[in-house]
């Protein structure tokens, strides 16, 4: 849901609540046939001689006779047409502390006993059905004896007369708002107050503590005067009732300010001062019984409420947060209701009006619940986020560990393989190589027996071959791969002594662009063996004096030619002997097989210069050479 829409819905809900309350509280609408009587003849029995005066209703003793302590009779004439109904009735919206009703001289209702301390029934409405047999044709009158005490909100509201059916709804409304509403508010406030205190205790958040305290105070205050029998503490009860309002305002002020983090030391001092003044004023009123003191006290509470609301208003404007606006709305509700009550009760001195302020707590409850839910949602979201992050971190770590483990395993495996290969290489090199070298040395030291010179020469050459072959194999096993050019260079280096011994000059002609060709290790080995075979044949059979080796690149083909100037038709002459010829043929077949493995081809045959071995095989273009051909030769 978008924030704007939510704000609108909140506003609508608040308006609906306010409208419902306003409608309910001003339910003094005229029912058909019902008349409101606002004139009475008052006989004050507390005064010597019991003077009689005409008063207008409602009559609040707190304002009209603050010190009256005892009985006063209100004589009210009932209009005939109001009684001309099947069941006429009286509706007393508010009367107290205790009272008696006489209709045409007969007692019809007695509420509360006359004892000390005086009970108090002034918080509830009364519906009185008039006995039909007492109704006279005309000049019906009702006398209401009100017995009250100072400071205990005695008095009489207007009197409604009319058909019972018409008065019933008004009575029900009044009961709902004044009595049942009070008990609902008390239980709700007490519950939420306890809950808030519990939250404050468990989460160590004082903000909820202030709210909880304020709610408990309110819960007590709302129902305090509904207890008919106050016991011996009636005076204390009323003093505390008066003071509790300011205590509640102070608690809620702290609650709201803390919610927006504006509970500065200054603010706390002001609120403390407010409570102190309220305490003094209420005590003074309890002592001196001056209604003006209570009026001032309530005005001060109102001012504090307005100041708090303005604070919140500034905050809401600055922050533009939902909570901020909600707080402002709650504070304004409190302020407006307080103002209405103050004007109604303290300025207009309307005894029959019911207080609105007690319902302002609903707005504050909404704020508290909102805040609680907000806190919960936020902490839940934070917790989820934290859990998600933890989970992600955990998974990342697991993946990392897995990766490290795999890498480690691979590297261990590779190391083991490399170590094993190194060991094999070393063994072959030092063991086999060393023995071969010794054998060569031995062969060289052997004096050639007569007639066996060729055999000894063959033996030496065979041993040389073995050494060279060993080296080629070792090279191919090395972990660091060499380019074809490098491998060829090393082979040449090893062949050179044998060629020299055979009196052959090797002309080395390798082209830069072909040197860098990198082939799979197996391929390099095959090529070296082919070239080696070609040289072996030349040394053994060709009786050549010069060999040209050429390595060149032709596009994606590498070409190696080994050309000698020896006896051109040596394969056909049958020279020099059957053994060598067989070896030569086998060597030729081997060359063909190896060339096929490379995906290339080898041509062996006569050449105008002599004899030529021509090997071609495909190689991929080196990517760096393709990008910059000049580089191919420069890098060795």
């Amino acid at each position: 849901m978008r924030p704007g829409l939510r704000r609108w819905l909140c506003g609508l809900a608040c308006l609906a609540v306010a409208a419902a309350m306003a409608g309910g509280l001003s339910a003094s609408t005229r029912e058909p046939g019902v008349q409101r009587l606002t004139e009475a003849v008052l006989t004050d029995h507390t005064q010597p001689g019991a003077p009689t005066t005409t008063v207008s209703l409602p009559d609040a003793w707190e304002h009209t006779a603050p010190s009256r302590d005892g009985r006063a009779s209100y004589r009210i004439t009932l209009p005939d047409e109001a009684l001309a109904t099947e069941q006429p009735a009286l509706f007393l919206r508010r009367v107290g502390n205790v009272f008696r009703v006489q209709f045409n001289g007969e007692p019809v209702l007695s509420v509360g006993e006359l004892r000390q301390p005086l009970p108090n029934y002034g918080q509830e409405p009364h519906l009185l059905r008039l006995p039909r047999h007492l109704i006279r044709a005309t000049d019906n009158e009702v006398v209401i004896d009100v017995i009250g005490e100072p400071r205990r909100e005695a008095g009489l509201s207007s009197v409604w007369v009319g058909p019972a059916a018409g008065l019933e709804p008004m009575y029900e409304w009044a009961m709902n708002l004044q009595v049942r509403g009070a008990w609902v508010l008390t239980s709700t406030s007490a519950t939420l107050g306890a809950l808030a205190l519990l939250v404050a205790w468990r989460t160590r958040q004082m903000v909820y503590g202030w709210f909880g305290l304020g709610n408990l105070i309110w819960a007590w205050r709302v129902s305090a005067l509904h207890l008919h029998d106050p016991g011996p503490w009636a005076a204390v009860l009323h003093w505390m009732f008066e003071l509790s309002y300011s205590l509640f305002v102070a608690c809620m002020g702290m609650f709201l300010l803390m919610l927006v983090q504006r509970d500065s030391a200054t603010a706390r001092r002001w609120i403390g001062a407010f409570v102190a003044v309220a305490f003094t004023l209420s005590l003074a009123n309890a002592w001196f019984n001056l209604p003006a003191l209570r009026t001032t006290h309530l005005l001060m509470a109102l001012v504090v409420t307005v100041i708090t609301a303005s604070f919140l208003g500034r905050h809401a404007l600055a922050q533009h947060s939902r909570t901020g606006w909600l707080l402002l709305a709650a504070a304004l509700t409190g302020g407006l209701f307080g103002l209405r009550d103050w004007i109604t009760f303290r300025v207009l001195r309307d005894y029959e009006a019911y207080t609105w302020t007690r319902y302002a707590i609903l707005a504050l409850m909404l704020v508290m619940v909102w805040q609680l839910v907000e806190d919960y949602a936020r902490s839940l979201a934070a917790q989820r986020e934290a859990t998600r992050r933890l989970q992600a971190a955990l998974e990342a770590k697991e993946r990392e560990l897995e990766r490290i483990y795999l890498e480690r395993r691979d590297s261990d495996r590779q190391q083991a393989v490399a170590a094993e290969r190194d060991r094999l290489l070393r063994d072959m090199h030092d063991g086999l190589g060393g023995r071969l070298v010794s054998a060569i040395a031995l062969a060289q030291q052997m004096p050639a027996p007569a007639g066996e010179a060729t055999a000894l020469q063959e033996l030496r050459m065979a041993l040389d071959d073995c050494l060279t072959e060993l080296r080629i194999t070792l090279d191919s096993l090395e972990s660091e791969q060499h380019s074809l050019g490098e491998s060829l260079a090393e082979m040449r280096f090893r062949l050179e002594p044998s060629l020299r011994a055979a009196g052959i000059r090797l002309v080395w002609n390798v082209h830069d662009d072909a040197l860098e060709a990198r082939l799979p290790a197996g391929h390099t080995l095959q090529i070296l063996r082919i070239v080696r075979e070609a040289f072996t044949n030349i040394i053994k059979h060709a009786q050549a004096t010069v060999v040209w080796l050429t390595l060149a690149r032709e596009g994606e083909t590498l070409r190696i030619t080994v050309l000698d100037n020896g006896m051109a038709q040596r394969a056909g002459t049958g020279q020099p002997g059957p053994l060598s010829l067989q070896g030569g043929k086998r060597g030729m077949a081997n060359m063909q097989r190896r060339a096929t493995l490379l995906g290339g081809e080898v041509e062996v045959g006569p050449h105008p210069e002599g004899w030529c071995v021509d090997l071609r095989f495909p190689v991929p273009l080196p990517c760096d050479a393709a990008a910059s051909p000049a580089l191919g030769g420069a890098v060795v």
Partner: protein
Amino acid sequence: MLTVYLVEDDPLLARHVLDALAQADGIECVGHADRLAVAREELPSRCPQVLLSDLGLPDGDGTDLIREISLFSGPWRPHILVYSVFGDEAKVIHAIEAGADGYFLKGCADRDLIHAVQRAADGESPISPAIARYLLKRFAAGPEASPSGFDGLVSEEPQLSSPEHAVLRLVAQGYLAEEVGERLMMSAHTVATHVRAVYAKLQVGQRSMLGLAS
């Protein structure tokens, strides 16, 4: 008369070398050791011009002996050739770094052995394509590529001159010293002295690192 000292534990190979040296004109073998200990004891008194040494000896690595000799600050400084089966093993390169002037191949013909000794005494150094390739890589990458284990130490490493670089490049491509000389318009002797100069640079770098390390 060219004096030679041999360190070799294989009696067959030793016999081969000693015979070859004895038959050569102008060369005199002034001693033979089959242990490093013996060589350490005898060498200072024999003061040969050329030292032929195997590397894997029963009581240690010949490279240690070479390092001791090259760090020795006396007037005597022999030309050192180490035995090698193929002329390109890592241990040959280690030996060159330690101060050897080259290698000679095990089981080479007598003629080649004598030639190698004479050329070594002449200030030339043999080289193989694999060594040339290693040197090119080593001087291009700096001391980090050194297999000696002094990684991370910064030293004033000498650089290759451009003829030296060209020589190494051609050797790495498979050209022999003579052919390199032809291609670069210099004598084979010049090529070989270039090689020795490169070896010397390798040893300088090595020593400076040793100095830093100690």
